[in-house]
């Protein structure tokens, strides 16, 4: 018995229809086509970006699609728009549209190979896009790395808050556990540092063992998660919310009191292991694994537990185990993300992992969309970019972002793109009428 709003006004519908019509030709562009088109655009930017920027009266290639420039220097708006149009929109549009048949054929051809091959081809292209785009400036690289880490955190929190329908507040704590563990791991073993002394192994080994440190961080935070999970999953209700909140305070306070890791001053000097490709690989891995999980019956059991726990148990679902697994799993990834985060910033302190981080991560989850892998990516990327872009607004940034979020919540209460996962197989399919048969034949 819910009260739904009446159908939207017709002007909006007409606008939508026009938009859809303009979009029509692009429906038949496969993912491959888009990736190549973007590659062309970022390649173009490398070649002529700077001269074009000079020509338009800017001293630099606009970072983050020019939003930063626009806000700090509104006279530049036309220049930025022209730049974006010439470098991104037009090339991508043209290439995507006119190469669509070609790439549909290639995509269909790729379908003959195992999924892994197709996936690798796409990932390589995606990374090439990212690399070319970001390496124009260190600022872009930093933002790209932080954004990808945010994707891991957001997705892992979505497992708990979206898929499992609990309200967990402990993610900053898990990140802290991962960040500290990974930092101590690399600093003790591979870095000559005045806190932990001489490196035990040759520093050049560090990058190769970095994954071990990250996994270790993930494991430690999963163990921490056990402390939260055992009491909270004994009964139903909002206990997780409160116990996890307490846990977050406990972790923060614990590190503040641990002199070995610098107490409130934190730990610095983490080596630069979390480079763009490394973060990219971990992000892809985490998205792939979490996406796999939520699409399996084991993962769907989370939804069953959320929607009706009693029914789930009556249908043989081991609800306690299901919740535990998902929660520890989510904590693991938050820990990994924390480890990466520490190595991107080269500095962490307990204060980084407090209430504010919590508000940020929660915002990303709910902005992007509950119960949704795509949504988590959308949420993490958009909020990170928006918050970087709005920096020139100083104080008003923290009025505008919350207002935006409230509006999203009011008009789309479950977030922008809720309840969607990738079907990896379908993602790579060729598009449009030419390919219908091909897709089904191989899927």
């Amino acid at each position, binding site marked *: 018995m819910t009260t739904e709003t009446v159908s939207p006004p017709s002007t909006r519908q007409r606008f939508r229809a026009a938009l859809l019509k303009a979009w029509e030709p692009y429906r038949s562009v496969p993912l491959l086509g888009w990736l190549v088109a973007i590659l062309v655009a970022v390649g173009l930017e490398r070649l002529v970006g700077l001269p074009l920027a000079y020509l338009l009266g800017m001293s630099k290639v606009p970072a983050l699609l020019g939003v930063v420039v626009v806000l700090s220097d509104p006279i530049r708006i036309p220049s930025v728009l022209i730049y974006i149009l010439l470098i991104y929109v037009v090339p991508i549009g043209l290439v995507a549209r006119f190469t669509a048949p070609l790439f549909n054929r290639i995509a269909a051809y790729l379908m003959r190979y195992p999924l892994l091959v197709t996936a690798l081809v796409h990932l390589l292209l995606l990374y090439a896009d990212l690399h070319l785009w970001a390496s124009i400036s260190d600022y872009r690289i930093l933002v790209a790395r932080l954004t990808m880490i945010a994707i891991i955190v957001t997705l892992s929190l979505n497992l708990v808050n979206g898929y499992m329908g609990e309200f967990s507040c402990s993610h900053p704590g898990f990140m802290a556990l991962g960040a500290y563990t990974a930092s101590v791991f690399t600093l003790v073993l591979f870095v000559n540092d005045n806190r932990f002394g001489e490196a035990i192994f040759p520093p050049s080994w560090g990058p190769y063992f970095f994954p071990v440190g990250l996994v270790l961080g993930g494991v430690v935070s999963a163990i921490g998660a056990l402390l939260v999970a*055992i009491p909270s999953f004994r009964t139903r209700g909002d206990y997780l919310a409160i116990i996890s909140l307490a846990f977050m305070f406990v972790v923060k306070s*614990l590190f503040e009191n641990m002199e070995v890791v610098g107490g409130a001053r934190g730990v610095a000097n983490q080596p630069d292991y979390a480079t763009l490709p490394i973060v990219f690989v971990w992000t892809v891995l985490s998205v792939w694994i979490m996406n796999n999980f939520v699409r399996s019956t084991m993962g769907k059991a989370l939804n069953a537990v959320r929607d009706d726990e009693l029914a789930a148990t009556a249908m043989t679902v081991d609800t306690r185990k299901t919740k535990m697994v998902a929660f520890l799993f989510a904590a693991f990834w938050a820990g990994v993300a924390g480890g990466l985060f520490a190595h991107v910033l080269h500095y962490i302190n307990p204060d980084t992992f407090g209430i504010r981080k919590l508000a940020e991560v929660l915002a990303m989850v709910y902005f992007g969309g509950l119960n949704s892998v795509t949504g988590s990516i959308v949420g993490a990327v958009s909020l990170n970019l928006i918050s970087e872009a709005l920096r020139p607004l100083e104080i008003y940034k923290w009025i505008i972002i919350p207002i935006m979020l409230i509006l999203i919540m009011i008009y789309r209460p479950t977030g922008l793109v809720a309840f969607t996962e990738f079907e990896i197989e379908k993602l790579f399919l060729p598009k449009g009428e030419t390919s219908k048969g091909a897709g089904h034949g191989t899927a």
Partner: protein
Amino acid sequence: MAFFLQNLVNALQWGSFYALIAIGYSMVYGVLFLFNFAHGDIFMVGAYIGFFVSTGLLALASTGVVALPEGVTLALVLVLTLIISMILNSFVGMLVERIGYRPLRNAPRASAAITGLMIGIILETGNLAILGPQRRLFPDLIPTQTITVAGVSITNKKMLIVGISILLTVALHQFVQRSKWGMAMRAMAYDYVVVPLMGIPVNTVALMTFGLGSALAAAGGILYGTAYPVLDPNMGILFGWKAFVAAILGGRGSILGAGVAGFLLGFIEIFVATIFPSTMRNLIAFSIIMIILTFRPHGFFGEPYSARLRL
């Protein structure tokens, strides 16, 4: 012994604030079943409103419009400030309900929680943007008189604060348990869709819940201002989260429970700081809470319930 008693007195005062804010949380959480993460900031707004009202009143008094003895003027200002601020702040709470929560009645509970969180951030930043970065000094409405009994120093402020807090807790508890409005609030927590079928105006009930909670927050803010007279825009954040913990520790829907848990949190914090290195305050206090909840998952006065985030 004196040392212990002194800490007991300190803890009572500190707990009062947690209690007052926890009650407000409990109103909305226990009653409407929503996390109102803006509540800590509503407390902050209450304190600021109290600041402006009381400075205004003091300025008025100093013009000599009414010539009363110093003590009487201050007492009058305190009472007026309490009343006016509670009313004004209840409007703030109702506004929050209207903007942030009413449109989300049909949404998942967690979404409303996020709106609350965001409204909280807006209140903090808005305060900073409008009033600038300097802290405000809350006027001294209760000239401190310290009584020392057996080595324990007790101030008139402390007694007043503790007294008012207990009074408000009990009064609100009675209201929610006994009055029909209170009953309507509890009903709404369960199923607001059919509430109008009983002839109950849903929106009024929701507004009232937020209004009452916010009025209490204002009282908390003003008392807080008299005890810790430095106001800053972020003062509500940590307070709010901790009071939220207390609200649940008290048991869902139990106003009394929230009050008791608020005081308890105060005790734990003060005594942890007394016995252990005080840096371990949060560490130990929250560990204790985790342990309590492990063995008493429904809090002190709560009943088992199985409702969960509606998605």
